């Protein structure tokens, strides 16, 4: 129970990524309702032993900005502050009047399984499912899906003989790093695949998905660590699964949101659109009413400007969130909810642990179940929880218990690899930091002071959650810096799609022909796109 004028301590988890690290949130609520939040280390957490990454330590910013020491989130209906009840009624009305086929329900997994279940019930009332933006699930044959849900304990990872990292643990999943280091101390060989040369690597490769099988030789004692996110390339995921099947190695897929795993399981039978497709359907008028649950499409979209334009075409945007950023400001109907740490409910982490979020508020669930009830789908919290436990296959939330891993399915079906047309007119696959193909264009062929590079985003929790970090710079290797004649302390010009941006740079140990960025660059939101660099 939240007590005013006294510190409330929540034993909670970090919403930064699918590892779901344990921590304490110390919350002080003043008599007038102003909230300040600090983070404390929970050393007894079996996931992270109290250790937190840069994002975990910045959670006070995540929870309180953009309005520092903010007022509680207020519900809104078409620009006017309203009671929560009125916002729910308005949402109900909007859903009732919209043609069912023009509705879409979207949640990436920033909330509890119980809210997710209620959201699914609501979507189900319209014959729809909850979309997660992870088009990968629909791009891969259903029989491959179970392999994507094979969690494994991070302690188990420490015992692997070989670890193949298709992610960058330093920036993407920092609390994975210590487990990899321990595996290495236990004698494991660490093989890293990606453009950044990682200190933990015994071997480093920068490969295209079709090269994995030829270049990499995992064994049955190996673990292949990759991740699934809204920009995932199906060819990459399939290549990792093929490699796992051929070698008997264990695939372990991480995801960027605290409850990505639970959300994906609860939405397993929903045809998933990619983010690109979602925006395409909004632009074409196929989607007229969009309901987003704790998911900020502006932060997720590869191209923020295009996302803004698309969202403006909706008849109704309904947002249920505790966040107070630009996206919630766009909502026609804003249903205010409690911050993540105050929620009562569970999340499923990447390992397969069912964790309690730590709070006792069911207001978010109540709003969703109230809406579902208005459309004939009754669901109380306890029955939702029971259903969640059944789907996940655990009897209770217990941070020391693991969901039984799904049996691996044979990988036989062909994969459809969707490519999207970019503004430049090039055909190229949507790729992420570990999935980038080498630059096709020769840096030497144009002027000597210019160079082209593949833009790779670090896909850190800061990027997914739109939290500002001290990282307004891009990374290049020394030979590219020399070739471009860049000077220390100066900037590099980055051009793509007719736009140019000047950025500070740092020299990093990365492959030639790559430009790494911790921020989405205004020149191109598409990771993997070719950009031109100059002094």
């Amino acid at each position, binding site marked *: 129970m939240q007590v005013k004028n006294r*510190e409330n*301590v929540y*034993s909670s988890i970090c919403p930064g990524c699918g590892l779901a690290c344990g921590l*304490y949130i110390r919350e002080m609520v003043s008599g007038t309702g102003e909230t300040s939040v600090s983070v*404390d*280390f*929970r*050393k*007894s957490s*079996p996931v*992270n*032993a*109290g*250790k*937190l*990454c*840069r994002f*975990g*330590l910045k959670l006070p910013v995540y929870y309180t900005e953009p309005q520092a020491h903010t007022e509680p989130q207020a519900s809104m209906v078409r620009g006017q502050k309203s009671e929560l009840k009125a916002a729910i009624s308005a949402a109900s009305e909007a859903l009732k009047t919209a043609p069912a086929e023009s509705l879409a329900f979207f949640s990436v997994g920033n909330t509890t399984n119980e809210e997710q279940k209620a959201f699914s019930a609501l979507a189900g009332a319209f014959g729809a499912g909850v979309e997660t933006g992870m088009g990968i699930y629909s791009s891969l044959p259903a029989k491959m899906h179970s392999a994507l849900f094979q969690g494994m304990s991070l302690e188990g990872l420490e015992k692997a003989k070989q670890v193949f990292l298709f992610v960058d643990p*330093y*920036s993407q999943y*920092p*609390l994975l*790093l*210590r487990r990899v*280091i*321990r595996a290495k101390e236990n004698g494991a060989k660490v093989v890293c695949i990606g453009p950044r040369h990682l*200190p*933990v690597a015994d071997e480093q490769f920068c490969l295209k998905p079709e090269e994995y099988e030829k270049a990499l030789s995992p064994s049955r004692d190996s673990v292949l660590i990759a991740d699934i996110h809204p920009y995932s390339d199906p060819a990459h995921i399939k290549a990792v699964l093929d490699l796992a099947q051929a070698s008997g190695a264990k695939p372990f897929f991480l995801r960027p949101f605290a409850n990505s795993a639970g959300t994906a399981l609860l939405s397993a039978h929903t045809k998933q659109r990619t983010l690109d497709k979602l925006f395409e359907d909004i632009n074409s008028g196929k989607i007229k009413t969009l309901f987003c649950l704790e998911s900020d499409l502006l932060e997720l979209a590869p191209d923020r400007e295009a996302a803004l334009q698309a969202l403006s075409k909706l008849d109704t945007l309904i947002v249920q969130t505790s966040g107070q950023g630009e996206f919630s400001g766009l909502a026609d109907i804003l249903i205010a909810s409690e911050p993540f740490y105050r929620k009562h409910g569970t999340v499923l982490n990447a390992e397969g642990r069912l964790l309690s979020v730590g709070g006792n508020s069911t207001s978010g669930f109540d709003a969703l179940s109230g809406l579902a009830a208005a459309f004939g789908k009754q669901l109380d919290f306890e029955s939702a929880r029971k259903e969640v436990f059944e789907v996940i296959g655990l009897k209770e939330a217990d941070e*020391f218990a693991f969901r039984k891993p799904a049996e691996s399915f044979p990988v036989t079906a062909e994969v459809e690899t969707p490519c999207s047309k970019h503004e430049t007119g090039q055909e190229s696959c949507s790729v992420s930091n570990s999935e980038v193909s080498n630059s096709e264009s020769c840096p030497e062929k144009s002027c000597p002071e210019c160079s082209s590079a593949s833009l790779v985003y670090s896909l850190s929790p800061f990027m997914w959650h739109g939290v500002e*970090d*001290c*990282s*307004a*710079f891009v990374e290049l290797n020394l030979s590219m810096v020399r070739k471009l004649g860049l000077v220390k302390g100066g900037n590099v010009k980055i051009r793509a799609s007719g736009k140019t941006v000047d950025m*500070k*740079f*740092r*020299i*990093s140990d990365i492959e030639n022909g790559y430009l790494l960025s*911790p921020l989405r660059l205004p020149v191109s939101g598409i990771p993997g796109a070719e950009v031109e660099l100059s002094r």
Partner: protein
Amino acid sequence: MSELKVAADIKVGDRLLGWAASEEVRARGASGGLVTAVLASALETGLVERVLILKKVSEFEAYPVFTSDVKEVLESAGSMHSVPVNLARYLKPETCSGKIALPAKPCDARAVVERAKRNALSPEDTYVIGLNCGGTMHPEKVRRMLETVYRLGPEEIAGEEIVKGKLVFFTKDGKEHAVPIDDLEADGLGRRDSCRYCQVKIPTNADLACGNWGVSGDLAGRGTFVEVMTEKGAELLRNAVSAGFAEVMQADEKSISVREKVNKVMLGMSEKRKAEVFSTIENGEERFEYFRKELENCIHCGACKAVCPVCTCGEDSKCTAYSSLADSYKMSLFHMVRFLHLSDSCIGCGQCEDVCPAEIPLTRLYQRFAVPVQKEYRYLPGMSDRTPPFFALKPEDNEDNEGGGCSCR
């Protein structure tokens, strides 16, 4: 057996044996519950307004909270070797209004002293009840010990204690399970690394120094040896006795000498460990490579700074101001500044190492800088109110002139 001492006779320098008057507190607290009784009485009588305690969640989990509720203080009683928190970090200008009492391991007490020097708290208003400490354990390691060495499930545990060099777990079926700490440490288990070379075992820098070393015979396990270090300590103890919360009597010579002996043995072990851990790296290039290699996995999270109980800089700090994620130095200036900053102030509490997500042995790295500097200046941070040597404007400003400046200049 000596007679019970009356409150008015308690004075600085006394070495006493004491226990809680209440049978319930004796049963709940460690070593007769004296510390719990002193904290509860301070709150009950209004000597302090709040007490900083560890609120128990389980045998392996607790978190610090300020409380004005005597019941919460009583519930916090008992050993918590598996909760290696430094309480001093929670004493901040915004939390330290009014008089406060807290239990404190030697590293907590040392951090309190250092924080007072940096104006983060008022030493006059902070009552520190020191607890002898032979070391604490990270809960992650404790669980591993239970699983691999003791073959016990965490749910079976009713309590734990360190007795005569053994880590003892008490199970709910009434049994005791003891393993020598040396054996555990030989397998990389046991105490936290920094505890193994810690230089202070009895918190003589606190207002009271309490512990079970030197308590033998009928009182073994049922009494606490307490040394009154300051007038505030005498005030605390007089208050507890006069309010009927605690009883004390003069410690006999045997108790005093056993306590000294245990302390000497513990410090000897620490010195030995220190010599092992901090063997000199003579070659400058090798030394640089050692630090570079140890720090190469740093992810720049800042947890080491956030958790450091000696650092009171907050956001406005040199270590962050002089470094940037955009830098591409072989070793970040964040660490370089912190090495320098902490060389006269690191108390070796191990918090930074506990929370480092890349498992960098940070306390060892800080102590590699701190040990020679602190030796040179004969300055052990947190043990007195002496100004840290590097705060002095000139070497000769060092108060006792014992150090005579750094010979490496």
